[in-house]
């Protein structure tokens, strides 16, 4: 199939940026979206153009490095799918595809489709951990954990930190990301001692980074490749309120 791509090009944080149109031909339906961009980039290099910069690493939907807004939807229209796992069979000949970076003030553009998501790391630094130095842990079976709690903690812990939730949110909120971590640790007995301080510190850091507030639009969970549910946010808010009393 042949496609017309409209790709966001921006040479650095201070560049204004613009959409540039590229034609790609003979796209195989079995290609992944990123492979389609690889083919474009190989051509651009040989033509003496600057290839389109985009982040990616595992290409298996788990590292959270990739992420583009495709036709207006973070990670594209296919549900529960990262950009790297999206395949071209979901497009058809003649389609026009727009490709843009995550847009949110706390995620400044580095170049083209690459953004700086270090704000997420700083939210984790604020409290997204259990303080247990190596070597100090008791036997793993000393504290049984109810299977339902362990499973629910796991579900929240599958967040890959991609930032799609922020990109999709009309307020640019990082609530889903932050809530996923607070829920994961808060559901486990090991996470209880720091539960209050963690919720407080992480939420405060989130605000400090300039992410917006949550107004329950649910756009985040709709694009989340790991299906992190909205009720984690309610949990975070409850923990935060309790801790702030």
């Amino acid at each position, binding site marked *: 199939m042949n496609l017309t791509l409209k790709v966001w090009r921006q040479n650095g944080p201070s560049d204004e940026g613009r959409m540039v149109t590229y034609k790609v031909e003979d796209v195989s*339906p079995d290609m992944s979206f990123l492979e389609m961009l690889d083919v474009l980039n190989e051509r651009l290099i040989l033509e003496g153009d600057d290839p389109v*910069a985009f982040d990616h690493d595992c290409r298996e939907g788990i590292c959270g*490095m990739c992420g583009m807004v495709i036709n207006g939807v973070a990670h594209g229209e296919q549900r529960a799918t990262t950009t790297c796992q999206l*395949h071209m069979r979901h497009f058809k000949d003649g389609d026009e595809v727009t490709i843009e970076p995550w847009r949110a003030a706390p995620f400044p553009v580095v170049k083209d489709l690459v953004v700086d998501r270090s704000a*997420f790391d700083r939210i984790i630094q604020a409290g997204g951990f259990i303080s247990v130095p190596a070597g100090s842990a008791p036997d*793993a079976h000393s504290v*049984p*954990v109810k299977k339902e709690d362990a499973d629910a903690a*796991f579900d929240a812990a599958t967040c890959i930190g991609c930032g799609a939730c922020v990109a999709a949110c009309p307020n640019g909120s990082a609530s889903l990301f932050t809530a996923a971590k607070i829920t994961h640790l808060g559901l486990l007995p*090991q996470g209880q001692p720091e539960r209050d301080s963690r919720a407080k510190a992480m939420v405060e850091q989130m605000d400090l980074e300039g992410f917006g507030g949550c107004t329950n639009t649910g756009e985040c969970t709709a694009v989340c490749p790991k299906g992190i549910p909205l009720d984690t946010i309610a949990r975070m808010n409850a923990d935060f309120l309790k801790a702030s009393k």
Partner: protein
Amino acid sequence: MSERETHGYKVGDPIRDTKAPEGPIEDRWDKRRFSAKLVNPANKRKINVIVVGTGLAGGSAAATLGELGYKVKSFCYQDSPRRAHSIAAQGGINAAKNYRGDGDSVYRLFYDTVKGGDFRARESNVYRLAQVSVNIIDQAVAQGVPFAREYGGLLDTRSFGGAQVSRTFYARGQTGQQLLLGAYSALERQVAAGTVEMHTRHEMLDLVVSGGRARGVIVRDMVTGEIETHLADAVVLATGGYGNVFFLSTNAKGCNTTAIWRAHERGAMFANPCYTQIHPTCIPVSGDYQSKLTLMSESLRNDGRVWVPLAKGDARKPSEIPEDERDYYLERIYPAFGNLVPRDIASRAAKNVCDEGRGVGPGGLGVYLDFADAIARLGRDAVEKKYGNLFEMYERITGENPYETPMRIYPAVHYTMGGLWVDYDLQSTIPGLFVVGEANFSDHGANRLGASALMQGLADGYFVLPTTIGDYLAGSKSFDEVDEADVEEARQKVQQKIDKLLSVNGTRTADSYHRELGRIMWDYCGMERTEESLRKALERIPELREEFWNNVKVPGDPEGLNQALERAGRVADFFDLAELMCIDALHRTESCGGHFRAESQDADGEALRDDENFAYVAAWEWGQDGPTLHKEALDYEYVKMTQRSYK
């Protein structure tokens, strides 16, 4: 004394001392811990350690060193330490907890690992790994790693290839992710505490060696393009494996050999580079644009039946091929183990039937993994419960529904057992340079067992290195000042390489060379190696490298984000590594583990070791005019050397 040999390498002095303590094997690690010098806590704050890599090995090492009070600088090429390739590990992590009471023990895990490694790993190291494995699970659980649990609230385990006990802990199909997030959170805690300074999007391009010691790294800030120098009292490399030398592998796209290769050029010996693990169940290549390969969990072989058409070039749909025209070749050749033979054997068998022209799918490079019988026997629901997420992943990538048509699978490069040589303390042949995780060669011999890489990475990072590096750092007060000239020389070398890559301005991209190199490696130094194939590779690689340096086209500037430049630098190093891999594979005329030399097989076509001549670690020293081989003899005091059989 050294002698010139036919393959263009010299033989140097053997390595006699690996620093492993003597005495009963179960006491050695204790002994070493007791003999290791301690650093005064007040002094730790003045001691700088650089850790390159934030995967399971590097993340856990940097966090732990920070907790101990050292001043740590941590580097990774991704935008966050949480994205290291370890994140992709699926199946699980081994530990000798014996929570099942099924007869597991430290000794059994030790035994399985030595045997699984086809008697090419060190007993002392492996024993320590098995001992420490139990602490890893405790540590991870305390950090909040949500391992799978049973209804009673205790941890669940499963069995994995190469073991008869159930000792693999797991977090659904995302064990690597959960363990890495545990290490990452510990690391970020130290960043907040001010003990670790994190440098993301920084690529290490050289090692600074001064006064005979590793004293720092030269890195490129991948956002600004600036070349930076970072100095320290010791350097730890945790930069992962080099499977991407084959271009196509199950590794993340950015996995590379640059850090360890450049350390190798500075004097760190490279051990067993040819030991490569090829995983039998990956999704086959679908076209020339293919950028990576995806692993399908090995557990699928529990219920799927592997087959190809009996006739060559049979182009019918699988559903149109009647039973009696199918060849369930694993069941036929290995009646005892059937579809469950170990990884290397299953991989080679698939290659053989495809070489015969009986492969299926694009290019004839695939075999069927058929669930029709399982669905008929267990019902579709039961199959879905067990493998639903894998079937979904398969469908996402191939567009085919494995409930209706058999999956197509093919072997792919997965893991590299080789790496920088380290002693019992995980120190390389450059004093002050320590190597942990997949980047070193230490514990898996010629073949790694499933679920043992995560174990090794975390054992190294949380428990082994923090002790052994202290012994080295206790002497740091006597280290000389770093010589400016050494720093300058390293910076120049890095700069020249970058300038050279950008100035060629030829007609082919770095990726296209990488693909071609990968093809050479796969064809001639892949699942099956022969003297002839390896000699061919050793002819082709230098030719292609020459062409690369004269005809590669790398666009853009040295400043700013330049992903094409990053890739080209990595490809350049892959060329040099590829050559060493082939030399190593050529010199080792025996078959062992993942290294199959067609000339060395028994009457049934199985790998045949040559213990008399090859029971050693091949440690290669870099040289301008070719490498020098140093042999470290392997002794087996505890596990008796035997030949594997799976018939």
